[in-house]
């Protein structure tokens, strides 16, 4: 399944909001089929980093490449790149006035120009993937958080993206609902989807990620596979960070 083709390259991204430097030169490569989890204390620029990748936030410096094409400085064709880079948000951001299935198909029809009937089939397929087919005709307000998040994953999947960015997809959910979303994400990872996930779910990161990146103060401080994280001394800071979590959870 996995080959070694680099699908996404992020080079030296800098971003400041006013006086606050949120990202201080972040670089990494992503290979097709990889799942990368970003962990670290809140306020260290993880979410900003994801938004800089599809230019929902304009980075001050640095470049992003999807395959051989530069995403940064792409001018109007940024919308073309955004179709190939899916995004899942912490608070789902479903379109409030559309049913689940319409949420999934709207971009297919309006952006891709797909025929409504075709788009409907595709949308229902994607909803089936995330176990939400039965809820196709329900509005966002009628869905639980976990269900809404699964619909929003289906919405991202429907565009057949090369990469999906997950911005704290379970942070707004109860533990029980978190599990159903993580299961869907795990399935996707196993099916070979390329995913960048900002998360606080260490269990998920350790069991699903190919690589874990520990971010602090706007930089990637440590990175490696979950095994390295567990055993290697170079992951001390990261382990300390996780240790805090375990203590809190343990209490």
């Amino acid at each position, binding site marked *: 399944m996995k080959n070694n083709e680099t699908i996404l390259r992020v080079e030296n991204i800098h971003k400041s909001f006013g006086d606050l430097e949120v990202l201080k030169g972040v670089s990494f490569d992503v290979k097709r089929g990889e799942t990368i989890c970003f962990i670290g204390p809140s306020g260290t620029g993880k979410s900003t980093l994801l938004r800089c990748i599809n230019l929902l936030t304009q980075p001050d410096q640095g470049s992003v490449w999807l395959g051989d094409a530069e995403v940064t400085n792409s001018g*109007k064709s940024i919308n073309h790149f955004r*179709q190939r880079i899916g995004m899942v*948000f912490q608070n789902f*951001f479903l379109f*409030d006035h559309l049913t689940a299935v319409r949420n999934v198909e709207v971009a297919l029809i309006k952006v891709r120009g797909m025929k409504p009937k075709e788009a409907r089939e595709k949308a229902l397929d994607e909803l089936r993937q995330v176990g939400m087919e039965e809820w196709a005709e329900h509005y966002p307000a009628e869905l639980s958080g976990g269900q809404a998040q699964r619909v929003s994953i289906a919405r991202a999947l429907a*565009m057949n993206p090369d990469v999906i960015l997950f911005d704290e997809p379970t942070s707004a959910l109860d533990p029980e609902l978190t599990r159903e979303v993580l299961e869907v994400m795990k399935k996707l990872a196993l099916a070979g989807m390329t995913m960048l996930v900002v998360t606080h779910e260490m269990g998920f990161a350790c069991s699903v990620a190919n690589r874990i990146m520990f971010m602090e103060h706007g930089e990637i401080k440590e990175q490696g596979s979950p095994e390295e994280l567990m055993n290697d001394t170079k992951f001390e800071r990261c382990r300390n960070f996780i240790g805090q979590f375990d203590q809190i959870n343990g209490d």
Partner: protein
Amino acid sequence: MDQSEFLFQILLPLLMEGFAVTIKLIVLTAPFGLILGILVAVGRVYGSKPISLLCKGAVGFIKGTPLLLMLFILYFGLPSVGITLSAFVASLVGFIMCNGAYNSEYIRGAISSVKEDQMIAAQALGMTRMQAVRHIILPQALIRSIPGLSNEFIYLIKYSSLAYMLTVIELTGAGKMVATKYFEFTEVFMIVGMGYLLLVTITTIAVMLIERKVAVPGMTQSGRNMLDIL
């Protein structure tokens, strides 16, 4: 003269003619007023600075000026700068401007009540700003502005009577003519009033049906009192 003879043979036929003109005014104004309202609202929120200011100024001018004065300007004023409109067309233009200006305020308010995240999500899917406005923001804004827009429609029914001041013989005008001729003011204007109340009531019911039809869970409140929108 027999009362019922006056009522059925003279008054009602004449009033019906006027009623038809009133309906024509309303039906012709409403769609253009809505389109104008949408354009101006979008211009104000998403347009460049000059466009936004222009829209704001125009709405301020139209809202601040009495409709009657606006109609006089269109009908009596414009010929002095070489534009002559018939009384009917002048009324229509005035109504569309007025209806559009007020509609735009409701729609603008509704647009700003749509959360920013809807735009972000649309852009993340690869929609351009314009596509996002058209397919995501505006539909939500329009659903939310139904109460305001229907209010405005009911106002339109009522101020359509001002066309009479430009000599358009609509319902009020027809009533005035008959009343003056036969000296039956109270009776005639009561019946004229019924005509408007009928239109208003029908609209109110229609709005409730439309609201039920487009109701989106979590976005609209249902079960509003009928008197609330009168």
